[in-house]
């Protein structure tokens, strides 16, 4: 009886370990399903035009579904990221290498040009923006609020949802503020 118990216990522990590993991998593969399309996302013409006009080796796209900003934590984190980037580049007398891609459709009408400008003004968001359709947002596999960084070889090197965990946040800022060292790394993108 005690032998059976030990065998069962071992099987249980092995299964637990496997589930643990699978659980860990889940986070790493968070965006793997949509990565192929996300890698091509910046090539969407209106987006590419804006990205080409920005200076810097690595460039940021903040993709947002404005309705998802109802989540206070998400909204706060999104605005904090915008603030930190703006402050850093303002001190260096540079424009942040960042743009917004906004999903069409907002129950508050914030995707309407004048209301969108008012919202950006009130919240000190100075990044250029493009509005894309819901179907395109889905096609590229974008999450409601997401940060995507592309390098100058046109590779997706970072893709994470907002609110962003601390461990990714540091990498995120390094990629945008210290372009020399991190280009070859790949965070949240398993293709490259």
């Amino acid at each position: 009886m005690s032998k059976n118990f030990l065998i069962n216990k071992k099987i249980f522990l092995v299964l637990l370990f496997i589930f643990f590993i699978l659980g860990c991998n889940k986070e790493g593969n968070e965006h793997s399903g949509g990565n192929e399309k996300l890698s091509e996302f910046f090539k969407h013409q209106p987006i590419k035009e804006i990205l080409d006009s920005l200076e810097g080796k690595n460039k940021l796209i903040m993709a947002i579904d404005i309705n998802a900003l109802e989540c206070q934590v998400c909204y706060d984190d999104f605005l904090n990221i915008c603030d930190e980037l703006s402050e850093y580049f303002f001190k260096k007398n540079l424009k942040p290498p960042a743009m917004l891609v906004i999903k069409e459709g907002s129950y508050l009408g914030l995707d309407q040009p004048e209301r969108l400008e008012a919202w950006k003004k009130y919240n000190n968001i100075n990044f250029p923006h493009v509005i894309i359709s819901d179907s395109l947002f889905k096609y590229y596999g974008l999450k409601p609020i997401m940060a995507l960084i592309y390098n100058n070889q046109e590779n997706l090197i970072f893709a994470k949802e907002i609110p962003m965990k601390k461990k990714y946040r540091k990498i995120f800022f390094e990629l945008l503020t210290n372009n020399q060292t991190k280009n070859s790394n790949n965070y949240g993108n398993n293709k490259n």
Partner: protein
Amino acid sequence: MARLKVFSFAFLFFLSNFSALYKEASYKLKREAVLGEKQKHIFLKATSLAKTDEGNIYVVDQYAYRIKMFNSKGILLKEVGRRGKNKGDFKKMPYLIASYKSNLAIAEFNSSRVRLFSTNLEYLKSFNVDGIIFDISFDFSGNLWLGLLSLEGKTYLSVYDLQGKKIKKIDLRYNLGKDFEFGDLFNFAITKTGLIVVAHTAVNKIEVWNIKGEFIREFSIGGLPEYSEKKVISYSLFSKKYIPTKKIFQDIAVGMNDLVYILGGHYSSNPFQDLYVVDYNGVIKRNLTLPEKVSSIYLTQENELLIIDEMGVSVKLYRFE
């Protein structure tokens, strides 16, 4: 023949009452002003408002991190606020506002911080309370009443003075328990005679308390379900956690003659438009249907009704005729 007489009498009685009801239902509202009508996109998302004795109206524009001050004609006089960590800045989005004489109390969203401003929108001070604030109102002696949510998920009323000193705490009678997340949220209003009238969001119960913290009575509104629908949000081995998926009541306010106006939620005949006007005994005095869906109501002692529309993009001032 006698039966026919009784039936005819009953029918006439019904008709007379029906016409009286209809007359009450047609109680008219005259639109006096649309706040900031001349400015485009005046509100990104208005969430709360208050009117002071001087006649100015203050609106919280949550997505703009601003408090906007209007005169009674709806002209924007001043606006303040910004997101930030400096003195007077909002660390989180402003959400609720209440006024008492020369003071405005503002609560941030999902926060336990109260910020006090003068009616000229100058920042005065802040203090923290012992829970997350989800409703706010002054009583007529200037104490601040707050609907609070504790870390354990329990809701209650707390009273603070303007120095931030806690005066008392009141546990309400209806608590659905810890397995019902956000099921015990409520709105409340304070009458001039010092009664606290509480409308639960997910339970068809109105509780009446006095300012000393003594329970007076409770009542329900006829025609509405006892509880809101719910859905399971998480399972554990021995229990399930639920959240309400609909609202029975959306807001509450006190008007002239201490009548209580309760804005119905999803289950009303006209969701977010029907106002149940009751006295504090729970006797329905009239029912009103607002001209549009509304997220928040505010009544003044001058027979005025201020509303924030469902989306929070416009604020209108009506007068009862």
